């Protein structure tokens, strides 16, 4: 599914509203499921942070790949629409990245005893966050729209290289952070179904919210661009 159509007008369409509505309902359902999920054997109720920490981290990765796809599409086809969607993906992705870092810190304090440790997963995620802050800075610093889009696309492509490194860091350099809950390389699930299901509901809800937010942000950017052209 495309995050936004290339012939997208500057009007808020029914599909975007539908995706956002479903995402909001899903997030409310996910919240109640997380609050009624059984406690973890060793971490007790603090493990409920898992139900939002993992989905926000996944959204950060999804945003990175979306920005990569639309940046490559821009460099190949030179359509400003692709640049706008890449920028919207990064903006929404930055919120999820910040939330992944923050929820991780709030989980680390009661379980590890510290808010932050420069261990591989946390460090690579912090680098990823810094790269996308750089993306926003680059966009703000260049006035020429074509040069801005090309430079931003370069940053987005380079930034996405860090995603598989960050994902695999918990296996390549075993440290404080636990290994993946769902290992995409082997398909192995390392958590109990009762704890997994609320997380998956939140993951689906956050995915819908991510798509809806990127579409809405792109619509606003398209309106802004159209006004600047007049």
């Amino acid at each position: 599914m495309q995050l936004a159509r290339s012939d997208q007008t500057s009007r808020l369409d029914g599909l975007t509203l539908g995706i956002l509505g479903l995402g909001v309902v899903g997030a409310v359902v996910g919240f109640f499921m997380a609050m009624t999920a059984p406690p973890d054997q060793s971490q007790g109720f603090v493990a409920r942070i898992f139900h939002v920490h993992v989905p926000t981290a996944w959204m950060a990765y999804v945003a990175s790949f979306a920005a990569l796809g639309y940046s490559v599409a821009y460099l190949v086809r030179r359509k400003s629409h692709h640049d706008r969607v890449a920028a919207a993906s990064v903006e929404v992705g930055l919120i999820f990245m910040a939330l992944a870092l923050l929820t991780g810190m709030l989980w680390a304090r009661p379980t590890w005893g510290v808010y932050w440790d420069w261990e591989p997963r946390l460090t690579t995620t912090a680098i990823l966050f810094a790269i996308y802050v750089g993306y926003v800075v680059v966009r703000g610093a260049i006035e020429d729209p074509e040069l801005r889009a090309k430079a931003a696309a370069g940053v987005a492509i380079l930034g996405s290289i860090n995603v598989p490194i960050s994902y695999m860091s918990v296996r390549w350099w075993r440290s404080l952070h636990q290994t993946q809950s769902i290992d995409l390389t082997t398909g192995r699930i390392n958590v109990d179904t009762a704890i997994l299901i609320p997380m998956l509901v939140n993951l689906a809800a956050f995915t819908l919210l991510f798509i809806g937010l990127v579409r809405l942000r792109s619509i606003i950017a398209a309106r802004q661009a159209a006004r600047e052209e007049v």
Partner: protein
Amino acid sequence: MPDNPLWNPANPFVVWTYAVVYASVFGYLGYLIWRYQRNK
């Protein structure tokens, strides 16, 4: 385990986590809707 803070359902770390996540996501959605409406 009544004395273990990890087993407190209202543990402040859990409460803050959910408050920050939902406030940020819904707050950003509200901000975008406001921006859209303002420029209508």
